[in-house]
């Protein structure tokens, strides 16, 4: 669970770092990803991996389109407008999903049915697939951001947009790409999550809220912070569910978040940018 929060938090952070917008529709992109994958597998009879690929690519393209057509217009508007816009978009996606796929709950058939027993601990392949998927995605993104020309250009753009323009970096294209990556990651998270929570139109809501907490916990704007924040939130939830009275499972992460904001407002890995004059 923590890994999923981490992945969704990663999506929040990527978009925030690059464009300074907070995308509250992230959870709904996750939901759309899961649905597209389900549709490919269950309706069109495609194999799981093909469905996975189609869903990630489709949602990534959708993310880029969203940026180019809708969100680019609100850059520079008050933060409030952006928040309302993305929440509104999220609601639209949910409505769209319920019209297209209905409001039933679906099960995504996966190839991860078995279990492994290691030293008396039983690990289901489903959960392992989530962990492995997170690791692969994070590793891939890390390599992309640090070792490719366009990845470094994305970092540059997020650090100083105007200077990036001066360097001839096509900033608008970079924004769309960031949206695509972030939406693609959300879709992947949705598909990995699907066997655990099952697919329904509201699956993204709770996840996104906790992922947002994870992103804040990790220090909004820090990519490793987002992933670690996600895992921390997941663990807190787990232990709170096991050891504390009923009801604490869902509130414990937020209590920790509040404490965190009081003690260390910049988050675990947050950096306060300073500029030399």
């Amino acid at each position, binding site marked *: 669970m923590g890994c999923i929060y981490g992945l969704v938090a990663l999506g929040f952070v990527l978009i925030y770092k690059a464009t300074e917008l907070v995308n509250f529709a992230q959870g709904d992109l996750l939901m759309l990803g899961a649905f597209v994958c389900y549709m490919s597998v269950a309706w069109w009879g495609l194999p799981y991996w093909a469905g996975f690929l189609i869903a990630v690519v489709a949602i990534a393209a959708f993310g880029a389109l969203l940026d180019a057509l809708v969100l680019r217009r609100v850059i520079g508007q008050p933060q409030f407008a952006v928040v309302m816009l993305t929440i509104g978009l999220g609601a639209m996606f949910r409505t769209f999903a319920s019209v297209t796929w209905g409001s039933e709950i679906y099960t995504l058939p996966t190839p991860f049915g078995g279990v492994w027993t290691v030293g008396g601990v039983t690990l289901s392949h489903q959960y392992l697939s989530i962990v492995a998927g997170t690791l692969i995605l994070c590793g891939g993104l890390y390599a992309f951001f640090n070792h490719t020309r366009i990845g470094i250009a994305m970092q*540059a753009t997020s650090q*100083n947009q105007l*200077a990036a323009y001066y360097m001839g970096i096509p900033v*608008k294209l970079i924004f769309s790409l960031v949206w695509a990556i972030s939406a693609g990651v959300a879709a992947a998270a949705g598909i990995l999550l699907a066997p655990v929570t099952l697919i329904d139109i509201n699956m993204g809501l709770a996840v996104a809220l906790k992922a947002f907490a994870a992103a804040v916990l990790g220090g909004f704007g820090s990519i490793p912070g987002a992933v670690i924040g996600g895992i921390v939130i997941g663990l807190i939830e787990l232990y709170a569910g096991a050891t504390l009275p009923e009801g604490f499972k869902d509130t414990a992460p937020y209590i920790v978040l509040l404490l965190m904001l009081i003690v260390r407002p910049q988050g675990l890995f947050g950096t306060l940018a300073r500029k030399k004059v």
Partner: protein
Amino acid sequence: MAEPILKVSNIETYYGPIMAIRGVSFDVPKSSIVTILGANGAGKTTVLKTVSGVMDPQKGNVVFEGREIQRQDPDKVMRLGISHVPEGREVFPFLSVRENLAMGAYTRRDPDGVAQDLEAVFGYFPVLKERADQRAGSLSGGEQQMLAISRALMARPKVMLLDEPSLGLSPKLVRDIFEIVVRINRERGVTILLVEQNANMALQTADYGYVLEVGRIVMADTCQRLLEKEDIKEFYLGIKEQGARGKRRWKKRKTWR
């Protein structure tokens, strides 16, 4: 004077309803150093931003190598060969020096040429080579300015727009940087449009100068002649005339007002 590589005619640029530039025209001849002087808020930076496409003029045009480039996106203008070294350096703080320079060469597709230019840049500023793997944010102000100039140079520009390279630097460092700016101009033939508050330094470096006040060009001449002018001496260089009784400043008025 040769045919100008960059010709700005009668541009008017606004910040919202406020007119920052009121019809500015100037020419930058190929391979020369041209400077625009002016006090705070005269509109110097706005002029450069208008040239590089960050701000769009309401009126007038900017012609680069015979082509109108006003109202284009800055990344397109940059691809044509105009590199902008922004005021306040604006390096990418969390990237290493080497990565910053690589971003300067973002638009280029010739790895050999880029490697050559990287060596050339390290030749101009050896300190950058020492710090190549350090984060740019950890450099001192002067080193960041060197990095900003180098980064612009990495694009192999035809014209370089320099916005206040002396800002916040020690006089010694300012002299060093200007020396290298001249070398870049002489050795690589890069045309330089320099915007400065440090009039003394700028006038000694440049070939031709314009004086900008409240959004208008009020004086234009070769730098040598500008250095001789009374008003420039008094208001930009701070040299007061030693009259018999010592002239009182508030009685003297600028000739162009």
